[in-house]
Structure formats: structure tokens, C-alpha cells
């Protein structure tokens, strides 16, 4: 898995609460059997004025000039600043895949939906939770100071910028280690194979119907 250690990038402010996964990547693009290629369709219904379908050449589509990602000053943004409950709705991992494919490596918000939050860590995206007031402060700066860049240091758990006092953030130690080391979760779990087998032996005695035992 992709590591995340220290990252500097341009911040784009997406000022909406409850951005759902249908908005992040609409369902028609979920028909793909690949993990890549979703970036062009990120926020498709907001980003373009026409109706998108898989396989379209997005460079030829009419863009919505009002949508913040389309504004020239936020081109090449790689840190998404947004509001509470980002990523609510479905479990589709296509949402973090689309964000990553577009170029986002970190998302800053007051809160995230549970499944989306988890999915980010599986893809090398750092979701940073900050107090509502701190997020509002970052919104003001991102709007006023064009080209505003931030540096996120996961090891130190800090966010710094030229116009910013250092901001600290909390993160679960296991999530932190997983991103810092780019751990392969499956390989790590299989280190516990013996314990899994032991659990199965015990469980089979207590609840044999869960193991396809004949009646």
C-alpha cells in the first residue's frame, strides 16, 4: 500500500457538509472492474455540465466554471478541505480511488463517515479530523490567500503553512503506523494464521452450525 509520511500540497476548499459517496463518484462509474481511472469522473455531477458516462473523454466535456475544483487557482490541488460528515453513504471504495486518482493525498474535515474514513487508510490517503473552528479558519485562508499550500507531517501529527500557526491533529496509532509504513494488511493478518485457526477450533465446538457440520 502507498505510504504517507510528509506531504505538501495546494488546498482546495469544498464548502459543503455531508458530501456523500454518490457525489464523489456517481454510480455509473462503479461498473468498472478496475481500481484506476476514476479521477476524471471525481465529483462528476458537480464538475461537468453534461451527464457523464464511463469511457467519455472528459477533456471534451463542458465544465462547470463555478465548481471550486474547476477554478484556475485550485488547479492541481492535492489537499481537499471540506466540511463535516464527508464521505457519507455507500461503502464504495471507488470514492477514495477517485480522489487518489485525481491527485488528492489528504482530506481535512471536522468529521468523516465511518466506512469512507476506513477506506482512505487502505489507499494511502490521510483523512485529518480538526475542530470545526480550525477548519473554518483554514477555509478563510484558502479563499483569501490564493495558491495556499499546507504541509502535513503525519509522523509529527502537524499541519504547517506559510500563513498558518502550527496545527496539531489526533490520529489513531494503528492508522498512523499503517500509513507511515505502507503496510500490507493481509500479509500482517496472515502472520496471525495460527491464532485464526485456534479461534476456529474453539468456535467450531461452541457453534458447529457455523462450520457447515452435517446435522
Amino acid at each position, binding site marked *: 500500500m502507498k505510504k504517507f509520511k510528509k506531504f505538501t500540497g495546494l488546498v482546495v476548499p469544498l*464548502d*459543503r*457538509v*455531508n458530501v*456523500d459517496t*454518490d*457525489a464523489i463518484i*456517481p*454510480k*455509473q462509474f*462503479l*461498473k*468498472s*472492474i*478496475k*481500481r484506476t481511472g476514476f479521477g476524471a469522473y471525481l465529483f462528476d*455531477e458537480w464538475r461537468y455540465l453534461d*451527464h457523464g458516462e*464511463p*469511457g467519455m473523454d472528459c477533456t471534451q466535456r463542458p465544465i462547470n466554471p463555478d465548481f471550486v475544483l474547476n477554478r484556475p487557482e485550485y488547479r492541481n490541488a492535492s489537499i481537499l478541505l471540506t*466540511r*463535516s*460528515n464527508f464521505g*457519507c*453513504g*455507500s*461503502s*464504495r*471504495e471507488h470514492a*477514495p480511488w477517485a480522489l487518489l486518482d485525481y491527485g488528492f493525498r489528504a482530506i481535512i474535515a471536522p*468529521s468523516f*463517515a*465511518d*466506512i469512507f474514513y*476506513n*477506506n482512505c487508510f*487502505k*489507499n494511502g490517503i490521510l483523512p485529518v479530523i480538526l475542530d470545526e473552528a480550525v477548519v473554518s479558519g483554514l477555509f478563510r485562508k484558502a479563499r483569501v490567500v490564493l495558491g495556499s499550500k499546507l504541509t502535513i507531517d503525519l509522523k509529527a501529527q502537524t499541519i504547517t503553512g506559510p500563513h498558518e500557526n502550527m496545527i496539531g491533529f489526533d490520529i*489513531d*496509532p*494503528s492508522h498512523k503506523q499503517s500509513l507511515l509504513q505502507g503496510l500490507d*494488511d*493481509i500479509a500482517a*493478518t*496472515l502472520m*496471525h494464521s495460527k*491464532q*485464526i485457526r485456534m*479461534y*476456529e477450533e474453539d*468456535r467450531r465446538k*461452541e*457453534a*458447529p*452450525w*457455523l*462450520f*457447515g*457440520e452435517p*446435522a
Partner: protein
Amino acid sequence: MPALTLYDKLWDSHLVHQKDDGMSLIYIDRHLLHEVTSPQAFEGLRLSGHQPWRTDTNLAVPDHNVPTTNRENGIADPISRLQVDTLEQNCRDFGITQFAMDDPRQGIVHIVGPEQGATLPGMTIVCGDSHTSTHGAFGALAFGIGTSEVEHVLATQCLLQKKMKTMLLRVNSRLGPGVTAKDMILYLIGQIGIAGGSGYAIEFAGEAIEVLSMESRMTICNMAIEAGARAGLIAVDEKTVDYISGRPLAPKGTLWDRAVASWRELRSDPDATFDTVHEFNAIAIEPQVTWGTSPEMVVSVEGRVPDPAHEPDAGRRAGMERALAYMGLEPGTAIADIKPERVFIGSCTNSRIEDLMAAAEIVRDRRVASSIKQALVVPGSGLVKREAEARGLDKVFKEAGFEWRESGCSMCLAMNADRLDPEERCASTSNRNFEGRQGHKGRTHLVSPAMAAAAAVAGHFIDVRRLLDS
């Protein structure tokens, strides 16, 4: 012995390993798969050379992309077809049971699991689908996962999890006549908000839950995720046991007796403590209709579209204004004056036999209003469809002007050909009214099956209790 919640009991009985940092490995008893969130997981297995840890815990069914008409002709959209074919190939390659599109047992994965007895109390159940919370109605710990986790479960039979917080939603008294589980869960989401359950497993309890059928309990738990909670839970009782008895994958003989005895423990201890408790009164709940683009944007059918000007919080106000613009609604409009053009009865929330019976009762001897362009009934599975036909419900719907379709997710998320056109308004029994959910620029109003049927025959939203009285 400390008093435990149902969630604590389920967690403890599946704990394989607890790490120092609080992350735990928990064992997964049942893994349900569908075509949309699994292909990349199987590809991952191939790339890493891993084999499924156990094949017998997996059950796969295509549901999101499948057509609901002329199924014998296959899938017209080549991209959808490839995805469904890929599931079939993956299941064949890895030895996983799949109910293919032409199997009478095919249906929406969350309808099929309970119907087959693949969903049992005391299990951990996961699926790459957020509405996996449905299965919590059986006293099982069930939640949606991403595709990386689908691969992880296939390869290891375990998941890395942190323990959730626990919330009790106690609903006292009973729902009034004509008010359903769907109204109850929409009302509860309106009360606690779509992020109210974030980080929690929600247990639903109280008299109003106890008197519900298993099918209604599934509707409640299905939408726990719409309150932000990955898992919904309801304690096991006689109804749970009766529902499972005799189903194809249910334990048989002496194993059945042993299983039932252990399932009876699956309830929160009387003095168990929850991190958060909310109490509600079911008698206060009226039939609900959503007016916006989030399930928490909901009011009683007798109410009006709210005015954002009265919302003190700036973020919420902006959200309401955007929702009203998207929905093409003015503040203060009476819900009963809103006229849908399409009606959709289906989805993993409301496509079981009880739902179809409730809708048919309203539709019987009535006609779909001439202003309605299309009214669809999409049964949750081939077996639900068969049972409905045995009861003559298909005739009731067709005579009234409804289309009677094959099973699948259909217009809940419009991955197949069933979708709204831009700015079309739909009375829908599904679970999400997000922008674009039922089709590009489509406008969704979430309601119960009876309320959807009532809107179909009236041509506008109407309190279904008025039709029941007449």
C-alpha cells in the same frame, strides 16, 4: 459477570486477537458478495497469489446491474454485462457459491441472505455494501466494508476493526395504524441526524421494535447506515427464531436446538450501559416524506417544506438551500401538494413480501393517477416475486397500472436501465435521496411502500391513513 450489551457479546465472541494499539482482528462468519465491489478484490487475490481462507462462508449474487425486464435476453449494457460476467467467473475460479441472474433465488443480496438462512443470529456478517446493516435485525453484527476489506476477508476470514461505541434507541409505545417501520426509521434519522450514529453500533429496542415483524426490523436496521451507524442491532426473540426455522441454510436437527439455545442469549443484559441512549415515542410518529437530498431532511406527510431562513446554523442553512434548489421546491409548500411523476417500490429497504402486500392493499381496486409516468414494483428476490404472484399481488399491481418487474436493486441507485430523467420527481421506497442517486438530476422523495402506493393512486403525496379509512 459485568452486564454486556448485545454488541459487546457479539464482539467478544468474534475476537481473534487484540493488538496493543486497540485494533483487533475479528472473525467473519458470513461474507456476502455482489458484482460491483468485488472484482478488484478477486483481482487482488490473483495478484498476491492468495486463496480464500474458507469458501463456504461466502455467498455471491449479482444485483446492482441486473435488468428487471426481458432478462432472458441478457444485459444490454456491455460494461454492466462484463461486471456481472466477472462475478460469475470469479466465483467459478475460487469455488464460491453464486446465485446467477437466471436462478430463481437471485435477488438483492440483503434480501437473499435472510431468505436463505445465510443470515443467522450471533454471526458476524460483512459485504461490500453499506446496507449490510440490514442483517443486524437478527442479532448479528453486520456492517458494510470497502473492497480492500472484501479482499482481506476472502484471504484471512478476519477484519481489522476498532470497537464501535454503543447507542441505544429505545422506541416506546406502538406505531399507529398505517404507520410503518419505514416511517419510524425516517423519523429517527430526522431526529438524530445523518451523522448522529457515526462511530456507533445502534441497538433498536423498546415495545415499538418488539412488536415489529422480522421484515420490518430489517427495514429499520437497513437504514441505520443512513443515521451514520455502520451497524444496527435488534435482540433475538421468538420472531427471529420462527423466521429462520426451515430456511435452506438454517441449522437442522439437534444442531438447530443447540443453535436456538445459544441465540436466546443474544440480547443486551438488563443493566448493560450504552455510550449514548435516546428515547422516542412511536405513537408520535406520522407517515414520513423526505423533502431534500439527505435522509435527515424529512417531515410528516401532513407537514410543509421547511424554510431555510429559520435555520440558525449557516452550514445547515446552505445545505437546505442547495437541497431545495436541487429538488425544485419552495419553502412552505405543503408535502401533500408535491406531485411525483414516477413511483418506485423496491430496494433492500422495502422489497420483501410484507412491503409488497402493504402497497397492494392500497392499490387494490384503484388506478395509478394519469399524471404518473411510470410506477414500478421490483420484488427483492425471485422468491419474493414468486410468493407475491402466488398471492395474486402481481395482478393487483398490473391492473392498477404498475409495471411488475424482475428482482434487483433497480431504481434505488439506477445502475441498470431503471432510472429517473433529469428533474423527474419520484416517490421511492429506497434508502437514499442523494443528488443523482436515482438518475442524473433526478429528485427522490423517500417514503414507505404504502405511502408510495398512495402517491401513485392520488398523483400527489397523501397521508395513506386517509385511504385506509375510506
